[in-house]
């Protein structure tokens, strides 16, 4: 255990932050894709599917992400799947992210005025055509600011994967804090890295929201 200097700390944290970014991207993209599928079930016409997705979102929003990580980690293993921390982390984060995105997006769909449904219906469009051409394009637009805003939660959520042993920036931080006896510096740097990752997302979410309130144009 040789001397670990400030530069080493910083370098190791930045390398680990790469995993944080990768994990965030996986969660967000995967959660987004799953979220779209679930969204169609959530607002679709099959009532039992609607209920199932509703329960899904309630459960995943009503339990700690940490517990979901533990369960993915140890539960998937029980199914005979070999689960490295990265797979468990990805799975839990995707399921968790999807649960929130479904609800955010459902809110956007229901924010579309009833008149849009009626006008498109009276033009003879089917449910799918209404969705495809009238409702979703509008919902998509208003969903951008809250979706970007939620991405901050995803980035921060990845910190919990440290607890199941995935070596991203938080885990690297705990290891380094212990190895260097400089918790103040190390956790300060870790916080700074997260801030640098998240703050631009927060800012752009706010800016998008403001822009949308000023002009709600195409």
């Amino acid at each position, binding site marked *: *255990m*040789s*001397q*670990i200097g400030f530069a*080493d700390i910083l370098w*190791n944290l930045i*390398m*680990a932050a790469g995993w944080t970014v990768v994990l965030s991207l996986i969660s967000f993209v995967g959660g987004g894709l799953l979220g779209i599928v679930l969204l169609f079930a959530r607002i679709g016409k099959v009532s039992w599917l609607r209920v199932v997705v509703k329960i899904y979102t309630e459960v995943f929003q009503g339990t700690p992400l940490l517990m979901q990580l533990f369960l993915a980690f*140890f539960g998937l*293993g*029980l199914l*005979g799947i*070999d*689960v*490295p921390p990265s797979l468990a982390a990805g799975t839990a984060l995707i399921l968790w992210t999807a649960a929130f995105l479904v609800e955010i997006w459902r809110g956007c769909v229901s924010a579309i005025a009833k008149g849009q449904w009626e006008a498109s219906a009276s033009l003879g469009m089917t449910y799918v055509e209404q969705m495809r051409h009238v409702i979703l394009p509008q919902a998509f637009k208003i969903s951008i600011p809250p979706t970007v805003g939620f991405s901050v939660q995803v980035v921060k959520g990845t910190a919990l994967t440290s*607890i*199941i*042993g995935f*070596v991203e920036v938080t885990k*690297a931080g*705990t*290891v380094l*804090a*212990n*190895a260097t*006896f400089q*918790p103040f510096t190390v956790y300060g740097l870790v916080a700074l890295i997260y801030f640098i990752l998240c703050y631009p997302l927060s800012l752009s979410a706010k800016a998008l929201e403001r822009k949308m309130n000023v002009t709600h144009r195409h």
Partner: protein
Amino acid sequence: QANALEDISAAGKIRVAVPQDFPPFGSVGADMAPQGYDIDMAALIADKLGVDLELVPVTSANRIPYLQTKKVDLVISSMGKNAERDAVIDFSEPYAPFYNGVFAPADVEITEASDLSGKIIGVTRGSIEDLELTEVAPQDATLKRYEDNNGTISAFLSGQVEAIATGNVVAAALIERNPPKLPEMKFLIKNSPCYIGFNENQPELMAKLNSIIETAKADGDLDAISQKWLGMPLPADL
């Protein structure tokens, strides 16, 4: 029941749970790669089995679930043996010495378990120290159980606990790095050498591991590892 040893050979790879928060058994260097007694031991086993080695960093709290859920083939993470554990997993012959005790700065007066009365002691959850100390500590001693050794040691260094229970060599490694608080051994809790853990009902694997350990003891390989990381020869009674 599958034959784990055959599975390992077939895969050409062995997955070993090792610590990375527990010098000198397992810690990280400036490049964040694991290093230590347990890592060298894992390398030795892999070498003798003629398979590749995959190191999986674990904590004291989660290493047994890792094994049970077959995320790893072996646990080589300075794990002590007790009845509870023996009921759920199997152990090899011991491969390293381990004396765990209670450590505190010089100005804290503790000489035996009863002196822990009213004190706050940090320990790593699920470790042998945790299990043993839970038995012997007086009622009014407060045990703070941390998730991993990082937590325990950080809590000690930042003064959140007055004393910690850990291995003597761990404390020694700590002292070597010249921390702000110097731990000194107050009393020995238990002599509890380290064993390799693996899933139950694997006689072939157990036999193979034991023979590798025997050989390593005999031909000095293990002694070399001990010299390298513990700075002392392998005790004869191991």
